């Protein structure tokens, strides 16, 4: 690709220029050397996006240089993945760039738990950061910023996990380091991933309501838990199709779940109740007189109806959805009317 072939010389000169901008007198030779090492050792590797892997350390170095950090930090940014992802040995890193850089590169490959420990340390103000720690953390934060900018190439589940971790750990660390702009961008990027997407989408609302209805099969005490758990999952799904699909598949598992949580055929009785509620049960009502077989048959029919209704939701226009909504409200009305009557008596 044109961009990739042009990236090599201009990327290095950009990094050098940005470094010089805040450190005019500094020796940038190590930065060039670090770029060469990263280019040589990451050669052939690719990012999830398909770009050459080198684009990542370069982007991180640009962020670090843009923040006005030292040339040493820029080197560390360029080298931050060579130990983890290539065969470049630590001794050689020490020899080529000195103990300081090597120690910092090692420090940037800290685990989430170590970051959490540092975050706690910062919050309780128990021990101030050493300048070396702060530099390593800043590179780490820049690394995460570039990863969050290119998050769309990860699997959806990993995206949410990364976003959660960023919100919980990296944003506070960025704040403590005084990297205000980075903090805001990280917060905005991760919030976008975690916010509910389905605010005014009628199809999703209808399928969630249907799922809620099927939760009625579960024993009373655990109903709220599963409703909330599933609402959270639905809220983070990106497309309408994915949300409706999730509701439908989950609903199919509800009878099994009901049997698991309580080993009794109560769910079948409840299914029959839902069948009546949905208005398809007029024929079934006659059969639901005591008798286990009849109850199971009614339950089966009701389940089929639920599946059918779900299939309706995939129709291209929203007429079936509207009809379904009418159906549900029609069910609610007689119930409330009956209650009022009872109270009146």
């Amino acid at each position: 690709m044109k961009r990739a072939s042009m990236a090599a010389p201009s990327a290095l000169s950009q990094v050098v220029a940005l470094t010089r901008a805040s450190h005019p007198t500094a020796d940038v030779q190590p930065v060039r050397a670090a770029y060469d090492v990263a280019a040589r050792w990451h050669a052939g590797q690719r990012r999830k996006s398909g770009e050459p892997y080198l684009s990542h350390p370069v982007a991180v170095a640009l962020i670090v240089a843009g923040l006005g950090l030292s040339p040493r930090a820029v080197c560390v940014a360029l080298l931050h993945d060579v130990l983890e992802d290539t065969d470049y040995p630590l001794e050689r890193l020490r020899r080529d760039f000195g103990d300081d850089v090597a120690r910092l590169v090692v420090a940037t490959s800290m685990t989430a738990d170590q970051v959490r420990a540092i975050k706690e340390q910062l919050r309780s103000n128990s021990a101030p950061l050493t300048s070396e720690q702060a530099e390593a953390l800043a590179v780490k934060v820049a690394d995460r910023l570039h990863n969050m900018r290119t998050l769309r190439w990860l699997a959806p589940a990993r995206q949410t996990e990364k976003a959660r971790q960023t919100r919980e750990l990296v944003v506070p660390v960025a704040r403590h380091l005084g990297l205000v702009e980075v903090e805001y961008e990280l917060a905005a990027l991760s919030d976008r991933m975690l916010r509910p997407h389905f605010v005014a989408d009628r199809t999703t609302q209808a399928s969630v309501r249907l799922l809620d209805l099927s939760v009625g099969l579960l024993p009373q005490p655990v109903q709220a838990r599963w409703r909330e758990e599933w609402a959270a999952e639905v809220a983070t799904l990106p497309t309408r199709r994915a949300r409706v699909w999730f509701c439908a598949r989950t609903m199919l598992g509800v009878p099994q779940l009901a049997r698991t949580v309580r080993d009794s055929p109560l769910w079948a009785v409840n299914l029959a109740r839902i069948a009546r509620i949905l208005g398809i049960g007029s024929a079934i009502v006659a059969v639901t007189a005591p008798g286990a077989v009849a109850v199971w048959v009614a339950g089966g029919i009701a389940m089929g109806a639920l599946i059918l209704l779900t299939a309706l939701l995939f129709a291209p226009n929203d007429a079936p959805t509207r009809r379904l909504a009418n159906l549900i409200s029609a069910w609610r009305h007689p119930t409330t009317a009956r209650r009022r009557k009872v109270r009146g008596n």
Partner: protein
Amino acid sequence: MAPRMTLQTQLVLRAFLADPTQSRYGLELCGLVGLPSGTVYPILARLEQVGWLDSDWEDVGLITDGRPRRRFYRITEDGAEQARDALARTPRAGRRVRAGWAATDPTLGGVTR
């Protein structure tokens, strides 16, 4: 009472055992093991019932934008031990199934004897 070791249950357990300290939510597991949500949640409920899994709500303090809390599952120490035993006792799955495991996640390819 140990849960029935269906293939799906085995997949879910292997996903947990691959990284026993990691807590995961239901949807994430669906993606990890490649099973539909309707299959995964009942298995999670069953495993939790027998005490192999532990589950808890996401820390509410983290949520600033009104997103509902997620429920996270984690394998218990006891559960991990018993699950390893149970997996070792189940007859070795056929080659085709193992290939399927390997495709979902390389760490699941090696089957304990």
